[in-house]
């Protein structure tokens, strides 16, 4: 027994291969460690995937997931032909594409600006302030939004009153304002956090590059364009592509919290619609909700996998 234990580490590398059964036996304790996590994974992540079959069934509570009758693609056809189909797809894409366009460059700008600061103390302070909103919960974030934009007593109303404007529009109940509020509150919250990775990339720049450029008479701005920007370009392109893979995903939590009866024409996204037709409905239609969700998940999976393949092809690192 002792001999096998001693040989184990080198076995995998050079010494002639031991039989698989023997290698598995030597590692029995490691498998013991994995039992609980794998059981969790199978029950809470993979079993629900088996539950996806109700998307192709007409779910009846008394028959359960496995016993309900198959209906093929009926639920999907129902969604594709429903008037809500166009609306939820359009809303989802509007919010996420807008989010990508606005949310992607801001952390880069912030990182470049912070990296240019010559005072370490000011840089630290600015970083501390910009990370801060990231730790606010989404409920509180939407709560802050409601308070600041409250047309009666909110901050914006108070400021407008100072300059003599008394009738502030109710942005919170406006469908046109919804994408702007959703996206820019997100930028406000996560700009600082998302800049961390760029700041770290900039910190690893070879200082000799900057010195050489300075000797050649390059201005600070020229150095940003020709040294700093190329440094973060690989990171940026990977993140951009990865974000593009999530273009059909708008999280349930924030959209649902920001939703009210006045702005649903813009705020009904796929995830909130799934919730409404299934769990929240007075006559819950589990099969219909699952079908919409599955349609969305498959598009997402295809997007992420292809985006990852593109990433690999252009020589960047891949996600998995």
């Amino acid at each position, binding site marked *: 027994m*002792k001999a096998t*234990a001693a040989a184990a*580490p*080198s076995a*995998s590398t050079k010494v002639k291969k031991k039989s698989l059964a023997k*290698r598995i036996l030597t*590692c029995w*304790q*490691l498998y013991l*460690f*994995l039992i609980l996590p794998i059981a*969790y*994974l199978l029950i*809470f*992540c*993979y*079993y*629900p*995937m088996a539950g*996806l079959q*109700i998307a192709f069934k007409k779910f009846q509570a008394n028959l359960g*997931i496995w016993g309900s009758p198959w209906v093929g693609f009926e639920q999907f056809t129902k969604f594709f032909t429903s008037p809500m189909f166009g609306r939820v797809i359009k809303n989802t894409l509007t919010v996420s594409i807008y989010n990508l366009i606005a949310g992607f460059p801001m952390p880069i700008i912030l990182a470049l600006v912070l990296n*240019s*600061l010559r005072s370490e103390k000011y840089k630290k302070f*600015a970083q501390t*302030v910009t*990370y*801060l*909103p990231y*730790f*606010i*919960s989404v*409920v509180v974030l939407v709560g*802050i939004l409601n*308070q600041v934009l409250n047309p009666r*007593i*909110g*901050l914006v109303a*108070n400021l407008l*009153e100072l300059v003599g404007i008394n009738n502030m529009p109710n942005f919170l109940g406006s469908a046109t304002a919804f994408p702007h509020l959703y996206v820019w509150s997100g930028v*406000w919250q996560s700009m600082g*956090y998302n800049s*961390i990775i760029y700041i*770290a990339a900039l910190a690893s720049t070879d*200082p000799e590059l*900057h010195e050489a450029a300075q*000797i050649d008479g390059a*201005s*600070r*701005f020229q150095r*940003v364009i020709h040294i700093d920007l190329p440094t973060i370009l690989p990171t940026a392109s990977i993140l951009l592509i990865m974000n593009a893979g999530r273009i059909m995903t708008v999280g349930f939590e924030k959209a649902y*919290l920001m939703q009210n009866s006045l702005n649903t024409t813009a705020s009904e996204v796929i995830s909130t619609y799934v919730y409404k037709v*299934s*769990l929240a409905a007075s006559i819950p239609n589990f099969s219909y*909700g*699952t079908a919409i*969700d599955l349609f969305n*998940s498959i598009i997402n*999976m295809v997007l992420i996998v292809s985006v990852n393949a593109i990433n690999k092809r252009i020589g960047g*690192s891949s996600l998995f």
Partner: protein
Amino acid sequence: MTNTKAKKSSISLSRDDKIYYAVIHVILFLLLLIIIYPLIYIVSSSFSAASSVAAGKVILWPVDPSLEGYEAVFENSDVLVGYRNTIFYTILGTFINVAMTLIAAYPLARRELPGKTIFMFLFTFTMIFNGGMVPTYMLIRDLHMLNTIWAMVIPGAISVYNLMITRTFIQSSIPNELLEAAQIDGCSDAKFFFTMVLPLSKAIIAVLVLFYAIGHWNAYFNAFLYLSDRGLFPLQLFLREILIANTIDTSQIVDPEVAAAKQGLADLLKYSLIIVSTVPVMCLYPFVQKYFVKGVMIGSIKG
């Protein structure tokens, strides 16, 4: 021209550089202002009198400073119940998360483990595909976990992202020679985990505790779907009712003197509530900042 050796601030800048620095300072100032101003406004409002808040007088600093809002928050029984539940879920949930993540990451970090690739694939696949809202809800219901504390701490017990950073950390910080030496001394895999890996993984455990604890503190989705018993609600669900759904029960404000200003107080209470619910996370913030940066960096190294 700036010499790197000399103190940069004492060197005169070229005209271009002066313009550049002026521009970045303006940009940064505006960004900081936009980020910090709403926060100052919330804090100031929370310390103002209900009448001033209701009249929309607060612009920057507290107007007629008072603690009325905070008194109302702590008289609200919902908030106290929510606070208690959230603390409980955060502690229990984080413990389960960290334990599960570590026991999963340790074997997966071992290069010689047969079948490692299959297990890794099982985990990573859940990052790109999952059962979704309805099948997961049905599972929780069939397991009779609805309206139990387990619905708050078991689903999501392992975050695959955290698992990956933990695995990368263990692989890169615990040298193979250490394992080999221990094995020669007859140390078992389990003993090696408890006596070597755990003590050497303090930094990553700190990162995990922070990531998970803040996640639990701020979470509302699971509670929203799986809990209907108000006695089990976490703080975020009550916050949602009060801050967003606007269903503050003014009859809960017992002080008769303030009864007249109920609406004003209801408005004020929201500001104080935002502060009270966010302060615990902000207290952790100095540690959080240090370790979050670390966590993001470990995460960005491909495992």
